[in-house]
């Protein structure tokens, strides 16, 4: 699973801590999601998409091998 969290964060000029506060998780937890080590639940992905005013599909995409 690929994600564009870092790109979206950069667009908003948010640090990991800022985004983590917005979506109610720890900074370390967000780092784990951003680096692809942990795949978030649907609720958290939707909350993240809402924070960025975008959709889940923009934030998360399946890898070529997963499709």
């Amino acid at each position, binding site marked *: 699973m690929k994600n564009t969290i870092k790109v979206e964060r950069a667009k908003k000029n948010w640090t990991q801590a800022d985004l983590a*506060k*917005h979506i*109610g*998780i*720890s900074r*370390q*937890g967000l780092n784990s999601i951003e680096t692809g080590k942990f795949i978030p*639940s649907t609720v*958290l992905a939707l909350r993240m998409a809402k924070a960025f005013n975008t959709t889940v599909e923009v934030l998360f995409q399946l890898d070529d091998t997963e499709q």
Partner: protein
Amino acid sequence: MFTYLYEAKHSTSIFMERSGKNESQNSVIFALIYGATYLPAAWLLKHQMIGKPLSIIVAIIPIITFAVFVLKLIKAFSVMDEVRQRVQLEAVVIGFSLTAMLIMLLFLLELCGVSNPGWFGYGHLVGYCWLFYFVGWFVSKKKYDV
């Protein structure tokens, strides 16, 4: 209006994070209280320094503090974020699996007459159980980099 909603949502997530931290701290405090009751109780009972009726009470006290600790841990688990929940879940699964394996191995070895109660008594198994939980916790923390 939107600013108000944003602030309300923001403060809710901060509140969630703080309450999660408080619950985690509470569970650590109760773990320490459990340890502070278990170790002296084990020492007192091992050296048979008190009479039988009092021994039973001393034996029950750490069980009560452990039960309170488990309740606090469950409460802390419910307010953790999902990454931390996964780490705890994997730690418990690894800890439980390794403890079950050790108990099975000891049982089978006992059946064939090979056992060493000096190293693998009930008291030691409690220690191994905690050790395996921390092994699982360490492995899972490394896996998710938290």
